[in-house]
């Protein structure tokens, strides 16, 4: 009951916030923009369902907006000192923490709905209907779990860091997660073996043209298809390979890349996708672990 009371107060604060409505406007505008962009690109590229292709493009935007909005929302309680009004009258720290997490996550769900509503309403007459509605729905649910994990992460930061710099820290964290996922994916794509181009010789012919000659170790010319293969120094071997794959499967930035790209490239050049159930488990686990850690720290934190 106490959490419901706190949520009621939080939601009132949230809907009165200009930042919240600015975010809503950005998400709605993003929906319109995406329809126009796909419509413009439809003759230049091949799409597996025009409308399907933009359903989840909001996620990158929300990945950056939500930490900014959420961290400022939580920080206002410290900045205005109003967290004291909650604790002094017997609301526990667990209740305050959980109500903040639920509030910022609810804002994320609301933004998702705003984008989807605008995108589908505007997109349907322009781009046609969804080709894979069931797949879109399951991916949407997975996205929502991903944002729960992200919300848990910045709720932890915004609860423990009481000054306004938390805004920058949370936005940098979001950027870092996205960038980190890209770097890890690029590393894991590197093939195990590569052609040894050490034996390639450039020869200038009598008529002045350049030609390429492939040699083996002994200096004998060989066919280009028989170029020897050597281990790629950039290849990530086990056990680091498994560790990095897991990091990307678990961290929200990696999950975002996995969902938006429908999987990740393996060294053989083929795409593999981590199953949704596995991603869902990781997202829920991360959200639970981070929240548990946040509660432990918050309970011990001295407030002013």
């Amino acid at each position, binding site marked *: *009951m*106490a959490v*419901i*009371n*706190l949520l*009621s*107060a939080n939601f*009132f*604060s949230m809907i*009165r*916030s200009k930042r919240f409505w600015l975010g809503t406007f950005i998400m709605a505008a993003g929906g319109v923009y995406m329809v126009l962009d796909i419509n413009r690109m439809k003759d230049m590229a091949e799409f597996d369902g025009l409308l399907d292709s933009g359903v989840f493009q909001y996620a990158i935007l929300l990945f950056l907006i939500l930490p900014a909005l959420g961290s400022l929302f939580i920080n*206002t309680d410290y900045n*205005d*000192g*109003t*967290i*004291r*009004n*909650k*604790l*002094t*009258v*017997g*609301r*526990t720290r667990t209740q305050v923490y959980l109500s903040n997490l639920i509030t910022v996550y609810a804002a994320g769900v609301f933004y998702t709905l705003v984008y989807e509503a605008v995108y589908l309403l505007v997109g349907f007459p322009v781009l046609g209907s969804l080709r894979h509605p069931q797949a879109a729905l399951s991916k949407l649910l997975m996205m929502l779990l991903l944002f729960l994990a992200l919300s848990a992460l910045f709720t932890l930061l915004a609860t423990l860091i009481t000054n306004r710099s938390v805004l920058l820290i949370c936005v940098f964290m979001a950027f870092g997660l996205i960038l980190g996922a890209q770097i890890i994916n690029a590393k894991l794509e590197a093939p195990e073996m590569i052609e040894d181009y050490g034996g390639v010789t450039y020869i200038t012919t009598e008529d002045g043209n350049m030609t390429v000659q492939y040699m083996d170790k002994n200096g004998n010319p060989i066919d280009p298809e028989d170029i020897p293969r050597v281990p790629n120094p950039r290849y990530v071997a086990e056990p680091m390979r498994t560790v990095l794959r897991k990091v990307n499967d678990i961290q929200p930035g990696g999950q975002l890349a996995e969902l938006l790209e429908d999987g990740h490239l393996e060294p053989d050049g083929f795409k593999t996708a981590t199953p949704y159930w596995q991603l869902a488990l990781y997202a829920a686990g991360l959200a639970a672990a981070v929240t548990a850690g946040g509660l432990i720290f918050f309970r*011990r934190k*001295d*407030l*002013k």
Partner: protein
Amino acid sequence: MEYVLQTSALGKSYGHFKALENFNIAVPKGAIYGIVGRNGAGKTTLLRLVCGLQTPTYGTYSIYGANNGSLEIIKARRRMGAVVETPSIYLDMSAENNLRQQCRILGLPDFSCVPELLELVGLESAGRKKARNFSLGMRQRLGIAVALCGSPDFLVLDEPVNGLDPQGIVEVRELILKLNQERNITVLISSHILEEMHKLATHYGFIDGGRMVREISAQELEATCRKCVRADVSEPKAVALVLDEMQLEYKILDGRQVDIYDAVNVSKLVRALSERGCEVYNIQNHDESLESYFLSLVGTGKGGDGRD
């Protein structure tokens, strides 16, 4: 006597710095309890602990008999309201919405108390104005109104008149007295402005260096600081005889000093003492102020130790 707040050897350290050390206090029900101490004496630290903003390093406290480690403390806190340090108000909300917000936090069924509270703190005409545009005094009063949501029995106020203009000080003082007298709210106030505290408090706790130096009721303090005529004499026994004959209230302090509390005709007194062979070396009005009493307790060392 029933106590609203009691502490037992309460301590709070920040690293190696001891902000409170074996601190004991007992706030009686219905009192206006003034915690008096220099800046940095540990007043705010105590209030932060009592309000649950920080946890004690050692020792315990109880509110309405509920120990800080027990689950009952949550229920006990619902009978509390507090303004610790700056008023805790949403600056981008109106006074009315700030109060409604607190009603929501408390889970009150409606907002019917809001107009009454605004009137109580004298903000009825500024209810729709954003708190950001309030003066310091108005913010302070709004902070008190927020603390009064849910009709608490125990109000904790940290330096409530700090930074207020003279009119603001009078308004806040009258409000506190009204709450105590009309609503029987027990008030715990911290302040380093002794004069102001003197006009409010029914009980005092003098704190220095993170320790409670003395707890005293206003009556006891009044007696200690009572106006009198202090005479330095050669024969205190003779003085006692003379003053008994003259039916004057007095107190012999030591071998040479007597405090006389009633109005006295000095010429008659000196003559009567002279007749009994007692010399009067010095005679003067004596009025120990709260300030001098405080200084006599805590010494005259300048500044605190940064405990607030």
